[in-house]
């Protein structure tokens, strides 16, 4: 059983310079209270691995604006001009990875694979510096795992074992990232007693989750 903790206590677990996976797609399904707590704490030099950096004022964009981030590994930063400006100004390193490759590299880290072979990126800038391997006459890039110290994820519903359910397009990277962080902190919308979530509805088994964020004090 896990006791739910306050967002500020969860944020305090993440040190300066940590590598953090953050769930969400353009802010949908991101752990918003946890992000706010990290901004409030003023954590520095984070390497953020996420699909995108959202749009100004939302989700991961707040970490970028607050100067918490030194490196971004993402598939898309197009809706966040600030990330692009900081990249051009040399304040943030940005590593762009195709979305399907990004999620498979995170999964590989989570499930103990040494890498995967993907056709995506063959013949493009993405193949620079990567081994090319031919299988059955077709070329693939060898893409290696992306490990992280933390996975900061969002979920629809949790129980106190840490089992998680997700809603609609707020799944996105969250269930995969839950496999790949050394420490996994989940921010659920709801927390229910153990036994309420049916086994077939659990998408992240609780044994993967280290910390649960408590609900909002007002119950929302």
């Amino acid at each position: 059983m896990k006791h739910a903790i306050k967002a500020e206590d969860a944020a305090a677990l993440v040190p300066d310079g940590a590598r953090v996976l953050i769930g969400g797609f353009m802010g949908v399904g991101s752990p918003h209270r946890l992000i706010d707590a990290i901004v409030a704490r003023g954590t520095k030099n984070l390497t953020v691995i996420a699909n995108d950096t959202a749009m100004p004022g939302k989700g991961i964009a707040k970490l970028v604006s607050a100067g918490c981030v030194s490196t971004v590994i993402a598939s898309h930063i197009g809706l966040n001009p600030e990330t692009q400006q900081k990249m051009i100004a040399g304040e943030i390193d940005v590593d762009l990875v195709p979305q399907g490759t990004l999620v498979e590299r995170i999964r590989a880290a989570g499930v103990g694979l040494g890498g995967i072979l993907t056709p995506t990126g063959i013949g493009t800038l993405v193949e620079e510096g990567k081994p090319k391997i031919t299988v059955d006459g077709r070329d693939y890039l060898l893409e290696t795992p992306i490990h992280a110290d933390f996975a900061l994820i969002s979920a629809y519903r949790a129980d106190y074992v840490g089992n998680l359910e997700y809603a609609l397009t707020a799944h996105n990277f969250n269930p995969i990232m839950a496999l790949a962080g050394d420490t996994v902190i989940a921010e659920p919308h709801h927390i229910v007693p153990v036994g309420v979530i049916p086994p077939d509805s659990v998408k992240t088994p609780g044994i993967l989750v280290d910390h649960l964020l408590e609900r909002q004090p007002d119950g929302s």
Partner: protein
Amino acid sequence: MEAKEIIARRVAQEIQPDTLVNLGIGLPSLVANYLPNDVHVFFQAENGVIGLGARPPEGMEDPDLTDAGGGFITAVPGAASIDSAVSFGLIRGGHLDMTVLGGLQVDERGYLANWMIPGKMVPGMGGAMDLVAGAKQVIVAMVHTAKGAPKILKECNLPLTAKRRVSLIVTEMAVIQPTEEGLLLKETGPDASVDDVISATEANLIIRGDVPRMRL
């Protein structure tokens, strides 16, 4: 008719019943508006839903249900929520029948460039590289020229999205099919002659007999 409407209407004709289709954000997303009512397809939003529905009525938005552009959507009956690994597994694994994407450039080889302009605009490739590498059919939907300059070139000078020949290029001026021999002009737009298309195109075009007009 506006260029975008011509393109969207023409692309809509390519969509086959009972298929899975991914529409890119921007111009490609307009295609859904022109699908005949009796053609049932499932639209995928690569951020995690199969069975994307129309925009919800005001006040009925669900913050956990959006498309890949972040806009609110609904889900049709029979929809499925999927995570990003499954979503891109479907794309890369050849389960997506068609993707419709915007383009910055396409060339005689049928190669597409649509994800960055070095030194100027680096949004990132998002899902585009996986979509072009993995979808069964790739349709590029774009206006024919950019400020008068051709976008259909002998060879792309912008970074490629994939080294894969796209299936079809649809602009307001032409429908062009990349083939092993080069770019085959299949149709001209409602307001364009064959000569108009040739002069707005840098790439060589293969012209076989009479080229019909689009029927919209």
